[in-house]
């Protein structure tokens, strides 16, 4: 039981958003399973994934909501933005239209999350250099102008996937350390669990069980 599920002190909620077919689910799969899903059908509604990571010696559980990109799901997937500590906003570097829609995704994110939510822009499919339709410089400038973190990644090769998820967590953790993120606010997207190894406390045990069946 040493690797029990409450070997972490924080839970961060993430959302992954962006046009359909940009590779949101593949990024999630690469991050949680370290594998590339070659034949990835359109996501239905939302998908969920978790992984425990470590930032500055603290174990953090990421609870990631991967939203469907198809328009017909958009009305309901919007409700998953609420209380996200991190938002990964994805476009496809080989399809300009997915880049052009970023401002609409960004508006949604800003309207539906809180000011401390960390927004990370990911230009996916950077392995397809020959088909590039959006330059690195252009996207990088967009990110800078809008105060977003930015990286080009490939869910296929795994390049920069880990970095995007981890850098987002580092930034959130930094906000907690600086006191910019109020842990008591219901919509902070962060839960603090004082680490409690062993079975000292009944309430904590129950909490753990609940987490266990959740994923």
């Amino acid at each position, binding site marked *: 039981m040493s690797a029990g599920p409450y070997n972490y002190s924080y839970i961060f909620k993430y959302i992954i958003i962006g046009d359909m077919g940009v590779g949101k689910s593949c990024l999630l*799969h690469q991050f949680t399973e370290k594998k590339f899903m070659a034949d990835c059908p359109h996501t239905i509604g939302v998908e969920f994934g978790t992984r425990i990571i470590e930032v500055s010696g603290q174990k953090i559980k990421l609870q990631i909501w991967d939203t469907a990109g198809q328009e017909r799901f958009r009305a*309901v997937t919007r409700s998953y933005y609420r209380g996200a500590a991190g938002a990964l906003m994805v476009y496809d570097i080989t399809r300009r239209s997915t880049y052009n829609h970023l401002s609409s995704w960004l508006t949604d994110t800003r309207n539906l999350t809180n000011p401390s939510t960390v927004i990370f822009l990911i230009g996916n499919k950077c392995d397809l250099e020959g088909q590039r339709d959006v330059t690195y410089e252009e996207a990088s400038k967009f990110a800078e102008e809008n105060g977003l973190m930015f990286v080009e990644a490939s869910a296929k090769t795994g390049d920069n996937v880990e970095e995007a998820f981890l850098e987002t967590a580092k930034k959130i953790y930094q906000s907690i350390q600086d006191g910019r993120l109020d842990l008591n606010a219901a919509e902070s997207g962060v839960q603090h669990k004082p680490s409690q190894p062993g079975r000292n406390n009944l309430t904590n045990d129950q909490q753990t069980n609940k987490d266990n069946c959740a994923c």
Partner: protein
Amino acid sequence: MSGILSETVEPSDLKKFEKIYHEQLYKNDVTPKAQFEYAWCLVRSKYSSDIQKGIILLEDLYKTHEEGQRDYLYYLAIGTARLKEYTKALNYVRSFLLIEPGNQQVISLQQTIKKKMEKEGLVGMAMAGGVVLAVGAIVGVGMAIASKVKS
């Protein structure tokens, strides 16, 4: 903040989509979109009566609107699993995988449901065990009292 079978809909969201659905129902012109959005919220409610209603709406869509069948099957599986009707839920999952074998999202839902069944099976047994112990204790006390009264 938890998994696909335990997260719940915000009451305000449920209300919002309920209103749209009812407005259309009043005009006798319900679009599959409005019905699906309302059902999707209902099956994520914390009340089982809502979930049941969501399932009825999804079953209706499944029969009448071919285009979105994979969505309806998926949320029927989630709704029934949330009502702990696991056999039904797994049947929906199986029907889905017949059409789209290897769909990672649905396979992962299947695993989540199976894990939950296992877990609750054990919890159920533990609870039954507890009841036996408690009944035993009551009977024991009763017998002790009875023997005391006799003597």
